[in-house]
């Protein structure tokens, strides 16, 4: 008999949780910097995307050795990126003058006038904050609803709801592969 390694192995179970072998951080950077940058672009717009991505990587690097699991590091990175984007919006709201009406409409995303993808990003930026974040995490981040929910601090059901509402608002004709209806 070889070593038992299945999920139901009671002998091995404690080791599964205590021995974490994290890959060298450079591997994460090489594999995921594009995804992080793309999500940051979607969440805060092109003007601040670089700052937010940079901040996310710095935070991830600082926290990395304390990570207790190496499962789905990509989702972990995108969650940090989302948190940095929310911090960015919060700071932007605090510092923007209150007499400016645009500062009251959720978190403004700066979209330059000459985007190659036509109208889509203007419409995404105009979505309610939670819907925008959910739809970006789901499709630009390519996360499943469980990870989206974890990033947003909500339930997978709510994540589905936010994504489908967003898609309806965007009038995008598509069926979510995780959510066949």
């Amino acid at each position, binding site marked *: 008999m070889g070593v038992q390694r299945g999920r139901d192995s009671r002998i091995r179970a404690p080791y599964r949780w205590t021995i974490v*072998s*994290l*890959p*060298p*951080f*450079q*591997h994460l*950077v*090489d594999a995921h*910097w*594009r995804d*992080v*940058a*793309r999500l940051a*672009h*979607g969440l805060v717009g*092109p003007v601040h*995307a*670089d700052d937010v*991505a*940079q901040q996310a*990587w*710095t935070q991830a*690097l600082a926290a*990395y*050795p304390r990570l207790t699991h190496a499962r789905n590091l990509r989702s972990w990175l995108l969650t940090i990126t989302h948190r940095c984007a929310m911090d960015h919006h919060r700071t932007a709201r605090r510092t923007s003058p209150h007499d400016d009406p645009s500062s009251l409409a959720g978190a403004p995303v700066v979209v330059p006038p000459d985007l*190659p*993808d*036509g109208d*889509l*990003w203007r419409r995404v930026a105009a979505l309610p904050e939670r819907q925008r974040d959910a739809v970006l995490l789901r*499709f*630009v981040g390519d996360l499943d609803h469980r990870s989206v929910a974890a990033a947003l601090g909500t339930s997978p059901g709510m994540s589905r709801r936010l994504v489908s509402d967003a*898609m309806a608002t965007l009038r*995008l004709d*598509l*069926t979510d*592969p995780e959510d066949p209806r």
Partner: protein
Amino acid sequence: MTDPFAAFAPTLAGPPRLEPTDVSYVVDDTVVGRMLLAVRDDGRVLATAYAPDAEAEDRWLTRIAGSVSPRVLRHPAPTDAVRRALEAYLAGRARRVEVETDLALASDFQREVLTGLAASVGYGERTTYAVLARAVGHPGAARAVGTALGHNPLCVTLPCHRVLPASGGVGGYAGGPAAKEHLLALESRP
């Protein structure tokens, strides 16, 4: 299903610029082969190891991540000192690679063997596995000594190329026999 956001292809600024952290490394093409140079944040050298291909490189990096710190970044600047020292030695300008080393990647036995080696076999000298085994207090462990040297994380810096088989020839070497011959020839130049 087609990606609904396929049109979203923003111009990306490039990979993040991160400050050097626990371990910095660089892969350098030297005259003896492609080498991975890894340095701790305090400047001590963890590895000057042969990494002929990407898999070998990954193996070393995974080992560093597991036994030193997972915060490992590709950063040329912190490795400048070791790169220069290695270059000076390989050009024959220096008689040793003048760096402080850290044997965190070596096993206890390897540490014994490698420090014994560095202390007892000088520039241009040669020894055999059996003689070195006796010198470090493990007579009869010539093969174990050979294995320990074969996995030397600090090749060239800790001179495992000076150890030859008693039966003649140059024996095995992590960087290949040609690299070993090159180093021996370099050191026997007057």
